[in-house]
């Protein structure tokens, strides 16, 4: 395997994007990524597109997106790993370049989620576990899947609903400073605690919104980094992926995600670093409890101590390990297939010290960042470590 760098990133505005269709939305991420790298679609022989789909009209999102973005002719694959589809596309593009099969590749994540109504999207995502055994008779929803983890975590470790609210307050605060974020406003603990119950103990402000969005990441070999005269390449230092059972009932406990722990351990081993070396992270906070479990599963703290990190403000800019200072899935938004690539967009900009506004730029010494992206309820786990 050879060294691979991120040489260009782009991100559409996240939000309710009724003004664009799937391919038009992807274009808003792909064109800036070309500009960032200083290349065009003609320089890119391989495209991996991450999208979960089912809620928009196209069946072959990779094909329509590639045509619209001037990538027709390149090798093309559509990657599905539920909410980690973007990371699956990133991993596929990375492996294509790392293996030497191609010198340049692009990962595109795109999701158009708001073309169907709310109960339908809740239904389609709720079926993303095990339809036959868990949805058919019991109508489980995605908030409910994570609520089962919140209840278990609260019972075992004394995590409270206030702790969950703190995650939401932090992520809204940073989203308000991030121009691509879906939500551009701060909230209070009171707002969060008084919001409507979705799946107890999770309330409206514990849940990520339904968001449209796209993100793109261009990867290249060391030779191409030189040839294209890339001044600040961001290197892929470690990559780990793993999976968990489809049936939640075939898990040992509901206080963490085995797939996340396995993926993190592999990524750390590959990068030759430890959790304490990481200076900025994006964690998969589809629901507030998921961010607390992520702290523990990655190893930023011991199991059961996640709530302590958020209470102490250790995951804010200036804290021990800033997490989701782009607003996270909670407030930047979670266009399912785009999220993994959008994490790379954010971390690349952090590592290049380009985050806007400046209050959300994390101070760096080791220039090490980590992305934790989960598909389903720990059905897929992807952890990526980047180094400038």
């Amino acid at each position, binding site marked *: 395997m050879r060294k691979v760098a991120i040489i260009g990133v782009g991100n559409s505005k996240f939000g309710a994007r009724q003004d664009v269709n799937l391919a038009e939305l992807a274009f808003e991420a792909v064109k800036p990524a070309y500009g960032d790298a200083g290349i065009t679609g003609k320089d890119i022989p391989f495209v991996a597109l991450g999208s979960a789909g089912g809620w928009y009209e196209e069946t072959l999102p990779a094909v329509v997106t590639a045509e619209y973005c001037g990538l027709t002719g390149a090798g093309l694959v559509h990657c599905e790993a539920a909410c980690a589809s973007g990371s699956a596309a990133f991993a596929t593009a990375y492996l294509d370049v790392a293996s030497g099969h191609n010198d340049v590749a692009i990962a595109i994540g795109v999701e158009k989620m708001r073309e169907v109504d709310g109960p339908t999207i*809740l239904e389609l995502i709720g079926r993303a576990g095990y339809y036959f*055994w868990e949805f058919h*008779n019991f109508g489980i*929803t995605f908030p409910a899947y994570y609520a089962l983890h919140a209840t278990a975590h609260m019972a075992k470790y004394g995590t409270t609903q206030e702790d969950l609210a703190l995650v939401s307050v932090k992520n809204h605060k940073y989203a308000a400073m991030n121009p691509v974020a879906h939500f551009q406003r701060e909230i209070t603990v009171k707002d969060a605690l008084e919001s409507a*119950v*979705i799946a107890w103990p*999770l309330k409206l402000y514990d849940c990520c919104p339904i968001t449209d969005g796209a993100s793109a990441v261009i990867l290249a070999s060391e030779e191409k980094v030189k040839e294209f005269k890339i001044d600040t390449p961001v290197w892929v230092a470690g990559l780990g992926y793993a999976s968990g059972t489809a049936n939640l009932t075939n898990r040992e406990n509901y206080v963490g995600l085995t797939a996340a722990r396995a993926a993190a351990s592999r990524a750390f081993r590959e990068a030759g670093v430890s959790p304490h070396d990481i200076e900025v992270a994006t964690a998969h906070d589809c629901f507030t409890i998921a961010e607390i479990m992520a702290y523990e599963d990655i190893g930023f703290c011991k199991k059961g101590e996640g709530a302590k990190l958020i209470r102490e403000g250790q995951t804010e800019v200036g804290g021990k390990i800033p997490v989701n200072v782009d607003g996270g899935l909670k407030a930047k938004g979670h266009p399912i297939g785009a999220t993994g690539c959008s994490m790379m967009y954010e971390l690349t900009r952090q590592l290049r010290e380009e985050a806007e506004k400046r209050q959300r730029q994390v101070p760096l010494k080791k220039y090490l960042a980590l992305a934790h992206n989960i598909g389903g309820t720990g059905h897929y786990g992807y952890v990526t470590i980047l180094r400038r």
Partner: protein
Amino acid sequence: MATPLPTLKSRPLTLTYEIPISKTHKFWNGIKEGKIYTTKCKKCGKLSFPPVADCPTCLSSDAEWVELSNEAEIETFTYVAILPATFQKYEPYTIAIGKLKEGVRVLAWLKDVKLENTKVGMRVRLLPKVTSEGMLTMEFLPV
């Protein structure tokens, strides 16, 4: 609210899948008999729930059907207030995961207990049920 932007409505499509259950029919028939059956691998002895015709541990396809007890302990639960499209006609429901005394876990609705009285660790019974619509299911009830 700004005026909605123009959109084009797609052709509507209704999908229904015919899901094969020949390999798990004992489980579905059992519900009608008032029993909950699952599979135990004859080769490696692994008890599975949900039932499986093929053992993911040792890959043997020689499974026997065994009846499960109804004694369970709640490991976690949630009260689902906002319901998905095909459950809109129901009242909000509580979903729980219970661990049976045999060691396997089951996910089902927990009925007849208020949210404020529902606790991790509470003992419940797991009972098969044929709903008024004829759906074959199971539910947890308080002891």
